[in-house]
């Protein structure tokens, strides 16, 4: 019989095939009446102003960076968690040190304001 990874590969083909068949079948069955108003951008009925190529807030980028750091650390913790009993107390202490360092990193980011959704806005100097 097939190995588990060969089954997974077949599963991937079937899953992609399923979504492709669903989309193509809908394409064949649906009515298709093109109309300029229907295909305009829907923004609550108002006419859309400008394009979507706007500047987005930097905070999304910051959260993505933090995620990459912590996700890689999670991958580092996983093999330790599987073999924690075999590795014994020394590895446990080492992992605790590592987690404390991680937490300090989080605390640093927190203190620097990287976790704030709304950045503190400097008030305009009065009299200007």
């Amino acid at each position: 019989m097939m190995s588990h990874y060969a089954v997974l590969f077949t599963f991937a083909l079937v899953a992609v095939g399923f979504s492709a068949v669903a989309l193509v079948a809908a394409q064949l069955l649906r009515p298709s009446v093109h109309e300029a108003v229907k295909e305009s951008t829907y923004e609550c009925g108002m006419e859309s102003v400008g394009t979507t190529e706007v500047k987005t807030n930097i905070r999304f980028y910051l959260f993505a960076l933090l995620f990459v750091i912590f996700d890689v650390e999670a991958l580092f913790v996983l093999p330790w968690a599987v073999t924690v009993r075999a590795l014994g107390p020394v590895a446990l202490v080492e992992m605790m040190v590592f987690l404390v360092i991680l937490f300090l990193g989080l605390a640093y980011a927190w203190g620097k304001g990287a976790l704030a959704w709304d950045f503190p806005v400097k008030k305009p100097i009065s009299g200007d």
Partner: protein
Amino acid sequence: MSEDAKDPKPEAPKPVPETTTAAAAPAAAAKPAAPAKPAPKPLPTPVYNEADGRLLKERRLWPTDMWRDPWSQPRYRMAWVKLIVLVAVALGAALLLGEVGRFAVPVTSFLLEKGAAYGLPAWAPGLVWALVKIVLVLHVPLLSALVFVWWERKISAHMQSRLGPMYVGGFHGWLQTVADGIKLLLKENITPTAADTWVHRLAPAVVVAPALLAFAPVSFGKDLSAADLDVGLVYVFAMAGVSVVGIMMAGWGSGNKYSLLGGLRSAAQLVSYELPRMFAVIPVIMFAESLNLADIGAAQGGYWFGVLPRWFIFYPVVGQLSFLIFLIASVAETNRIPFDLPEAESELVAGFHTEYSGMKFSLFFLAEYAYMTLACCLAAAFFLGGGTAPLSFLDGFLPSWAWFLGKVLALVFCFLWFRWTFPRFRVDRLMDFNWKFLLPWSFANIALAGLYVMVLS
């Protein structure tokens, strides 16, 4: 047609005898309790508009009327009878079927035998067996989407004293979702002119394919999984992560500013909540010493004091904390209320799927419900013992897949319940809750779990 369509016979309005004044009440209370039941509330008389004779209020029982004295209503008593019959039939089917996993060996040997008899190449029986397993497992996300959409509508209706779908299919509108699915299949597929055409078109496939793929290593019972991966847990989390890309594609490719904001918010939220979700599972891995979903379930077999199950949720403090963090993060990962910021309809129209219609929209919908089912399957496998019985004397009474299904249904009910209980988070509170509360606590939880493991071993 359901019994709702028939007009229940109005019972004769019994005039309630004028009760004595409050002063006589103590004397009445001293007597043995009056056996007389309170008179059933008479059906409301139909109300018509005087001008045009239009029916304003039907002569029918609304749930609120019925709940004043439910036992006097034959419909209410019949509902219990129907429920008991349904549960009995389900139990009988489970007992009759037994462990489904035991069919694997005879079927594979049959396929190998037939393959040899017909001179097929050596890989053919394996491929057929793989396809059989895949098609069976694919039924889980697809059927669960159909059933849970209907169930959610019924639950939400009953929580708000409504009836919900009642007509399509006869019994409590059980075919409503199928009808909706056909409608969505036939709806026009609109691609806005401002959209990035291929990114827009491919996004639903990128979201739904990983959602289906993530079910491959899930163990639905004893020997019941499509691929019994040794790294099943990592694989499931990896697949759940791929969908973020699809949501970003949908947000960016739609050419709509609300979609863009919804997509970005969604990416930030999904990516953030993935961390506590992952860290909450690490104590489970430490206790089970395995990444294989079937092994994690099997590690929770056995009973404390011969009665209480050795489920990880019952490990004091660590288990409950892990389960709570995992549950909260799972609700956030599935974009459900109270974490439905990406599609907050009062702020962002519909978030990343504003511009989607027809089948493309229903694929997003399918993915959402598939992820909800997946989260419940994972929570049941990690914390509620997978296919093990909840009490020692029930062990072996039902097959493992039936216990697993029961746990998943209970968890799904909680997910649907949350929706009608909690208000939506504000977006900055949402991120704060994750980074400043869940993540530090999940670190502390790992440390505590480490102490447990050292003490126990």
